[in-house]
């Protein structure tokens, strides 16, 4: 399935899609989007790249196994969930930074939590798809 057109397009599409997935992730709190959808879009980007350039290329570009994103994401989410303990609030209590950061908006534990979800979804989806496509 390696065609020149798809190859050429995917070289541009991969960064754009990844950027788009991060955009979806960040705007989730106010507008449609969020970590889950963002993660799915990002994994589609990689899958598209794998279709165009071959799995070996995509994996070498990633440098590490996508499975490692899962524990990383779980750590993010878990830390976000327990961080309120440090200020004496119950589990999952949302903590927000005062003030705005341009582009990102407000920064708080829900966002970190969502980033964790984003990473887990990418890791899980890519692990499953890569594993199945590698099997003979």
């Amino acid at each position, binding site marked *: 399935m390696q065609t020149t057109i798809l190859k050429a397009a995917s070289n541009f599409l991969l960064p754009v899609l990844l950027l788009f997935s991060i955009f979806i992730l960040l705007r989730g709190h106010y507008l449609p989007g*969020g970590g889950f*959808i963002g993660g*799915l879009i990002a994994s589609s980007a990689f899958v598209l790249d794998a279709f165009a350039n071959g799995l070996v290329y995509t994996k070498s570009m990633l440098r590490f196994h996508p499975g490692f994103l899962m524990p990383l994401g779980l750590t993010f989410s878990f830390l976000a969930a327990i961080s309120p303990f440090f200020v004496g609030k119950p589990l999952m209590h949302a903590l927000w930074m005062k003030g705005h950061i341009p582009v990102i908006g407000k920064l708080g534990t829900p966002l970190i939590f969502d980033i964790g979800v984003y990473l887990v979804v990418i890791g*899980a*989806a890519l*692990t499953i798809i890569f594993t199945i496509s590698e099997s003979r």
Partner: protein
Amino acid sequence: MLIVVLIGFLLSALLLFTGNFFKEKKLSTLLTILPLGILIYLLSFGQKIAQGEVIYLHYEWIPAFDVSLNFRLDGLSFLFGLLISGIGTLVFFYTSSYLKGHHFLDRFYSYLSMFMAAMLGLVLSDNLITMFIFWELTSITSFFLIGFNNESQSSRKSALVALGITGLGGFFLLAGAVLIGESAGTYSISQILSDPEAVRSGSYFSLICIFMTLAAFTKSAQFPFHFWLPGAMQAPTPVSTYLHSATMVKAGVYLLFRFSPVFEGSHLWHELLLIFGAVTMIYSAYHIIFRIDLKSILAYSTIAALGILVFLIGIGTKMAITAAAVFIVVHALYKASLFLIAGIIDHETGTRDITRLSGLRHKMMPIFITGVIAAAISGGIPPTLGFIGKELIYESTYHFTESVVFLTFLAIFTKILLFYAGFVVGMKPFTGKLPAALSEVHKPDIKMSLPPAIMVILGLVLGIFPGFIEDFISAPITQTFGFTDVEHLKIWHGFSEILVFSMVTILIGTIMYLTLKPNYKLKGFISKLEVISPLQLMNDLNQGFEKISGWWTNLFQNGYLRHYVATCVLFMVISIGYVVVFNFNLDLADQAFHQLTFHEVAIIVIMLGAVIFTVVTRSRLAAVVAMGIVGFSFSLIFLFYGAPDLAMTQFSVDTLTVILFVLVLYKLPKYLKLTKNVLRLEHGILSLTFGTLVSMIILMVLQQPVQKEVSEYYGDNAYLLAKGKNVVNVILVDFRGIDTLIEVSVLTVASLGVFGLIKLRIRSRDKK
């Protein structure tokens, strides 16, 4: 005191990392320091305990459920604690030589120290729930200890049987504990014991009584639960020594002792203990005659001894309780040393078959002397502590109010056979001529011959000077039962009927030892009867269960995915259909079909077309693509009805699903039609019915007035409480964040599962 309980667990965890060090440097003897330290620590409280003091330690654990790590050291726990740590010290010491160079020596010590810690926790804890946890821990750790030789099938099986029986007892204990907690309003053992009336007057009293005795019976191997104990002889000898002389099986006795004050005077309690204790001691005492394996003989004599203890607690007079307390110590001393001696014989000669052992005194004189003294303690020959114990037992049956003759007869009968058992194990292998097969036997290591020697010397010295332990025997009796001026322990009671009974016991026992030789004929006789033994019954029951569950499983799990799906759907159709058919009344006029817009109709037509195409097409790829169309149409519907988040997710998920399907299908062989047309028709009807039912349910739901409280709450508070405008996302990451956290964990596990399954398969195939 907390550290005493926890240090065993700590050590066993540490051994995971340092085990090799101890193994390679041959330093395992050093581990004896742990039980020895605990023993010394406990002994340091000796003075206080003797004066009747009780030492408490409070540590809150789960206060909301009234579960605490409260410990209490009183006379009773002190007595048991001494046995656990004392015998533990000797067993630790002995093991370092017995299992020298064993591949899993570190593991063994790890289990052993964990077991010891659990036992100590059990006798020290002052909270019913905590006690239950330690009780279960002893069952679990003993499972590992009994099944230590895990390459042998019989060893694994007996470990499983032991776990099954003692685990069953654990359930009874939990049930009893909860009911006691309900009646008394507290789980604190001290409080329950200080106000036993609360439990006694409660409505669950009989039930509690039955549950607690059942828990004790399973743990203490009372008939008909006794059979796990002989099976547990598969364990290495140090384990048998530890579990069956001083710890595991005594846990049940401890439980009965501890809660006796609550049940005292209840007919049910006394009768249960008396009957089961008596049956157990007679049943297993008589079994001793038919055994030829040293450890098997000891196993049955252990059960008989436990029967005597339960029987004595059932009698419940001051004399009987004193007798029980003394007998616990006596039994621990002689049974542990006899087990250790049997272990030495096994270790040096490689056999435990009594018919093949004789004349060993030429090779190991010190062990012979030890064995004879141990047998003397077991047989109650003066001036050993065993004699005092036996006298007290006869006193308590003889001075009881009812059926004196019968009870005394039972006690004498059992004691005669215990006398016989002691001498068969402790003396018989050493007397007679040394067979040629045993001429190469070596003297055992000092590390192995010392522990039993220490114990028998203790049994002898304490018999002559019983004053040493008198305070420790009377402390639990006065504290727990409230009896005052407990009988002084003395070796000479004057001429009385009791002395006659003792003499008769010794006389008949000696005659039995001299005339009755254990042989295979006797063993063959008993094995014929095993068809109706409880062990056989349990095995039959197990096999029956296995057969039924195998049949049941094969009925559903036939390996065809379509079969699984069809079964699940059929079940739902039946269960939902039943409700829907009886409650369905649809007012079609209400349904606003005329409000349908053009694009909605168009989407439905596309979906229908795609579904029909999926069913009829002969190409897998086309079917997958058609299914994808259905999915994308769904996301459009979501979009129309104002759920952009859902639409986006559905869209991405569907994209990835189609890709996954393509990846999988790419590797499959060409499309083959394997199912029969009839089956396809059946499945088609089933799916149509299911679809219709779901539609009916949705229509019914729509007729109900909509409850908007929940969605309004989220809508109103998303921005105010969670500072977000996208309600869906706020629910996901904030309101119901824990759900999401668990979901992503599940996602991780699922994908690891896929990874593991496929990668492992590839690897195992590559190997071939």
